[in-house]
């Protein structure tokens, strides 16, 4: 005769958070959730409260001044300059880095192309460098008197340029550096997206008489929509957050012509110790990024692609 398996009486706690409980999966999330709440959510809202206060390093108390910082921001010429420059940077970098990244990915996806591995390594390797190394290298390349680029320009009898000391050029120099540094990452993402598209779609289109352009426009690009959405969103967020390149290469100059919002936040908070004002600028940037991201999701994720 078989012995009856022992049945244990479940305690109240086991019932509520035991394996069969609805709360059980959330127990696994708890450590991260705590981390997220303490180090992300709390600082975010505390930062918002600080933005409503006058809070300098020298002061131990936060003095509540409501939206005074937000109201005075448009009247601050440095904020205006950094706001405009950030938008210019976003407008210049986003299409450029995405377009060039896509072009390289299409090139690397060509079946007859040889040396693809070497090309991929060459494209992705700048992305592995630290920002300081990238910027210092490009500072030397773009130097006005001793720069590599100007050296070759003068050898070719072309007019030399003071890239980092000319209004207009300095921000564009930062755009070029960013393109060189990050385009490989987008290329790899696009390449992964291109390789996911079934060949049968291109073949069917070809049979129907579609040319290369039609194939790209009606097959490749729509199929890349999820990857494209991801890249555009990430690229725009990264561009709005531009800081290191400007801080190292131009310091925001000449004459504030390349000053950007994150640099303005950093200097206001950590150099001039006006934490309240810095938090207000940070929140303005946060809202701008949020609006742009939501708009992109709305516009670009309307249609889903089914193969």
């Amino acid at each position, binding site marked *: 005769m078989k012995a009856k398996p022992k049945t244990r009486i479940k305690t109240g706690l086991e019932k509520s958070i035991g394996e069969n409980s609805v709360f059980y999966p959330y127990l696994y999330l708890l450590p991260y959730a705590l981390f997220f709440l303490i180090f992300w959510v709390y600082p975010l809202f505390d930062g918002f409260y600080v933005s409503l206060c006058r809070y300098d*390093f*020298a002061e131990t108390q936060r003095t509540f001044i409501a939206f005074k910082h937000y109201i005075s921001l448009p009247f601050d010429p440095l904020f205006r300059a950094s706001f405009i420059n950030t938008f210019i940077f976003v407008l210049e970098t986003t299409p450029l880095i995405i377009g060039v990244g896509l072009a390289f990915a299409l090139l690397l996806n060509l079946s007859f192309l040889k040396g693809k591995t070497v090309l991929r390594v060459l494209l992705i390797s700048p992305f592995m460098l630290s920002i300081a190394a990238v910027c210092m290298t490009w500072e030397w390349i773009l130097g006005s008197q001793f720069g590599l680029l100007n050296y070759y320009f003068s050898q070719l009898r072309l007019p030399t340029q003071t890239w980092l000391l000319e209004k207009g050029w300095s921000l564009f120099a930062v755009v070029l550096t960013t393109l060189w540094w990050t385009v490989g990452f987008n290329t790899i993402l696009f390449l992964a997206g291109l390789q996911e598209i079934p060949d049968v779609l291109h073949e069917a289109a070809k049979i129907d008489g579609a040319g290369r352009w039609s194939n790209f426009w009606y097959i490749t690009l729509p199929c890349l929509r999820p990857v494209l959405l991801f890249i555009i969103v990430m690229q725009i967020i990264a561009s709005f957050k531009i800081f290191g390149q400007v801080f190292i290469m131009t310091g925001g100059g*000449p004459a504030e012509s390349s000053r950007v919002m994150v640099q303005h936040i950093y200097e206001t908070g950590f150099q001039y110790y006006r934490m309240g004002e810095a938090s207000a600028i940070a929140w303005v940037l946060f809202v701008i990024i949020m609006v742009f991201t939501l708009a992109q999701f709305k516009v670009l994720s309307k249609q889903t692609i089914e193969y």
Partner: protein
Amino acid sequence: MSKIVKRVTILSIGIALLMLMLVGASAQGKVTLRLWHGLGNVDGPYFHKLIEEFNQTHPEIDIQPRTWGDWGQFYDKLAISIKVGTASDIVTFHTSNIPRFAAIEGFYPITQEIAEMGLKGEDFFEPTWQGTFYEGEQYAAPLDFHPQSMYYNVKHFREAGLDPANPPYTLEEYIAAGKKLTQDRDGDGKTDQWGYVFNMDTWAVQFWSTIPQYGGQVIDEDMWKCLLDSKESIQALQVWVDMVEKYGISPAKCTEDMQLFITQRASMKSDGTWILLGLKEQEPELEWDNTVFPKFGVNPAVWVDSHAFGLPVQKKRDAEKIEASLQFIEWMVTHPLRWVRAGHVPANREAAFSEEFRTECPHQYNASLQYAALTYLPRTVHLREIWSRLGTAFQSATLGELTAEEALKKATAEIDKFLDGR
């Protein structure tokens, strides 16, 4: 047998306890101090060698230096670290920053401790000593001062028929010399050798120097009103614009002044004394000398700052560490000639006037001769922001985007904005 085991066990435990006590005693006896600074790759390694020497001669103290490589980042890091109680035990910093850090209660006042070291005001250059005080308290021990100095290419001087032993001093002399030294050597219509080169970066120390030369002021005595839009300050800025546009002796849009001087494509340049060791490394190809900063205006004046030692406020005041830190500070400050070989002038008058300094550090000695013209930065908590706005004005004017008057009026309006009501 069991007796032997028992004895061996007791002996082993005894030895182990003794060793533990010895190890504990040595660990307790050695004070480890963290020292942060922002000295660069010329005077920084020299400073570390001195620390090594101190560590060897003071086995009870172990100073662990760390450079942030850049003064800007050093100050940003220091302020945050003080706020969260993780700053180093000692810092080497510039006395011009004392008001900013005193305002956030960043340094321990050490008035009494410095007096106990036997350091007295009359032993130091007056503005250098005064620079270590803020609102009646002393926050640092002065180590040196490092003014701007004028560096010139001796070979170029000889080739242009100028006397290297008698370098220019006034504006007229500079323009005359600069015109002789500015040359198109290969006849292609482009200047290959510039008479005088200055850096257009936002760090416009040369402009700071000329403001008091023309009788101008950056800010009023109460640190409440910016005075940069005065006709004296405008005149002081205009002289730098004219170097490029009117006299044509300086290259436009230049930040590579040091490279131009080292590669002998510029004959004269102004810079701090910290570049001395770097220039020495270029000998004998580069034949150079230095002299006092020019007097373009009516009064002699030169920008200067001082390195000093301070004790950042910690989470918990550690008397033992403070005592050890003061021992190091005393060792450095009371033997100033050790340090000034790195390219500085001793803050101590006796050392600066000594025969040893004159003969062993001739270039530092040349720079020290302007001790009566030393002009420290305004003692305001807003120094960094004022510096930034002034630098932008300097850039805008020297790049030709704004006139000197427009640039300084703009800067004044911006500076007044954050001075008001604070």
